[in-house]
C-alpha cells in the first residue's frame, strides 16, 4: 500500500513540477514584464491568476458547467451513433471477406474527407444546434471505429486460429472465444481514438455554429475580448477530454483483464 502511494507520487511528480514551473514563468512574464510595458496586455495574454479567478467565477455561477454539459451531451450522442453503427459494420467487415471487399472502396472514398469539412454541410442541412453537432461528431468518429475494428480482426494471430480450429472450435464459438478477444485491444484503441476525435470536432462545430457549449464559449470570449474566458474553456475541454479518456482506459483494462 505504502509502496503504491510512493509510486503514484513519483509518477505524478514531473507533472506537478512542470506545471508549477510553467505557471510561475507565465505569471512572472505577464505581471513583471508585459503588464509594465502595456497595461492592456491582459486583454491579449492574461496572467494565470486572472484566469484562475475567472475560472472560479464561471464555476460558481454554473455557466461553465452548463457549457460542459452541452458539449458533453453532443459528444456522447454523436459518439454513441458512431459506435452503434461503426462497431457492427467493423465486426461484419472483419469477419466476412464479402462485406470487407464491398465496404473498403466506400471507406477509401469517404475517409480522406476532413471531418471539419462536414461542419458547413451539417449547418446547411440541420441548422444551428444540437442536431448538426451530433452529425459532425458522428462523421468525425465513425471511421476510426470501423477501421480499427477491421484492423483488429485482420491482425489476429494465425497460429491462434489454427490452434483453436485443431482443438475443435467452430463457428460462433470461434468468434466468441478466439476472434473477438484477440481483436479486442485494437477495437478498444479505435474507441479511444474516436472519442478524442469527437471532442476535437465538437469544438470546431460549436465555434462555427452554436449558441452553447465550450466551443461557443471560446468563440464568444473572443468576440467579447476576454481571453481569460477562452483559456478557462480550453483548460475545461482538455480536462474533460483527458479524464474521460482515463475512464475509457480504465474500462479497457477492466474488460481485458486477462491480458496481463
Amino acid at each position, binding site marked *: 500500500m505504502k509502496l503504491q502511494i510512493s509510486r503514484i507520487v513519483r509518477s505524478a511528480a*514531473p*507533472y506537478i*513540477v*512542470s*506545471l508549477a*514551473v*510553467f505557471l510561475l514563468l507565465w505569471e512572472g512574464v505577464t505581471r513583471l514584464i508585459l503588464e509594465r510595458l502595456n497595461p492592456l496586455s491582459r*486583454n*491579449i*495574454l492574461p496572467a494565470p491568476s486572472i484566469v484562475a479567478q475567472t475560472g472560479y467565477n464561471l464555476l460558481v455561477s454554473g455557466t461553465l458547467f452548463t457549457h460542459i454539459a452541452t458539449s458533453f451531451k453532443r459528444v456522447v450522442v454523436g459518439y454513441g451513433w458512431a459506435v452503434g453503427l461503426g462497431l457492427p459494420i467493423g465486426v461484419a467487415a472483419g469477419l466476412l471477406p464479402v462485406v470487407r*471487399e*464491398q*465496404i*473498403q*472502396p*466506400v471507406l477509401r*472514398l469517404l475517409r*480522406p*474527407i*476532413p*471531418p*471539419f*469539412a462536414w*461542419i*458547413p*454541410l451539417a*449547418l*446547411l*442541412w440541420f441548422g444551428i444546434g444540437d442536431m448538426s453537432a451530433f452529425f459532425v461528431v458522428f462523421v468525425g468518429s465513425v471511421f476510426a471505429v470501423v477501421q480499427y475494428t477491421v484492423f483488429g480482426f485482420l491482425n489476429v494471430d494465425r497460429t491462434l486460429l489454427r490452434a483453436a480450429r485443431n482443438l475443435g472450435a467452430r463457428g460462433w464459438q470461434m468468434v466468441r472465444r478466439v476472434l473477438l478477444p484477440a481483436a479486442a485491444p485494437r477495437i478498444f484503441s479505435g474507441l479511444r481514438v474516436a472519442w478524442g476525435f469527437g*471532442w*476535437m470536432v465538437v*469544438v*470546431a462545430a460549436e*465555434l*462555427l455554429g452554436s449558441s452553447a457549449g*465550450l*466551443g461557443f464559449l*471560446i*468563440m464568444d*470570449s*473572443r468576440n467579447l475580448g476576454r*481571453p481569460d474566458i*477562452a*483559456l478557462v*474553456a*480550453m*483548460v475545461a*475541454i*482538455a*480536462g474533460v*477530454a*483527458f479524464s474521460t*479518456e482515463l475512464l475509457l482506459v480504465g474500462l479497457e483494462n477492466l474488460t481485458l483483464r486477462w491480458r496481463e
Partner: protein
Amino acid sequence: MQYRIVTILRGGRQYALLLGLLLLWEAIPHIPGIGGALIPHPTGILKDFVLFLLDGTLIRHAANSLLRVSVGVVCAILAGILMGSIAGIANSLGRGLEAFMRLLKPIPPVAWIPISILWFHVTDSQQVFIIFIGTVFVVFFATMDGFRGVPLRLRRVARSLGASKWTIVTSVLLRGALPDILRGVREAVAFAWFIIVAAEFVSAPNGLGYLILEGRNIIEPSRVFVGAAAIGLISWGLDHLFVLVERSILRWQNV
C-alpha cells in the same frame, strides 16, 4: 477477349456497393420534396470540380493552403524533433518536458483559434500557428518514443568503441529513432491537412477551408465536396510521395 471481360467484371465486383451508393446519391436530390438544392449530386460535384480546376480557383486556394500547411508543419517538425530528442535522452529535464507536453496535448488544436487570433490577428501566421500546435505533439511523441526505443545494447557498444556523447546522440540515437520520427512526420502531414480546413474556416480570406465554408455561406454545397476532394487528393499524393522518400532514406533498414 471474353476471358478478359470476365476478369475485369470479377475485379470490379468489389465496387458494387460503392456504385450502388453513388447511384442512390445521384437520385436523392431528384426526389421531389427533399430539398434537392441542399444536397449536391456526384455529377454536379464532378462538373464543379473540373470547372474550378480549369478557371484556376482551385489551384489558387490549394496553393494558399499548401503554403500555410508547409510552413506550419516544418516548424512543428523542427521543434518536435528538438524537444522530442531532449525528452528522449535527458532524464529529469526530459520527464518534465514530457509531462508538460502531455498536459497541453488534450487541448484540441481548434480551441487555440480564437486566442491565436488575439495574438497574431487575422494573418497567415495565425493559421500557421494552428497547424503548428496541431502537429507538433505527433512529432514530439514519435521522436521521444523513437529515442527511448533504441536498444541500450547499441549505446553501450558505441561507447565501448570510443564514441563521444555527441556522436552517440547523432549517429546512434537519432539514427535509431529515425523510423519512428518519419512515422510521426507522416502522421503530422496527414493531420495538418485535416486541421487546415478548420483553421481557414474562421479567419482566412482564401484557401481550401475558405472554399469549403463558402459553400455554406452562399449555399453552394457542392463547393464543400470540391474543397474536400482537393484536400483528399493532395494529402493522398503527399502521402505517396512521402512513402517513396521514406523508403530511400531508410534503405539501410532492408539491407
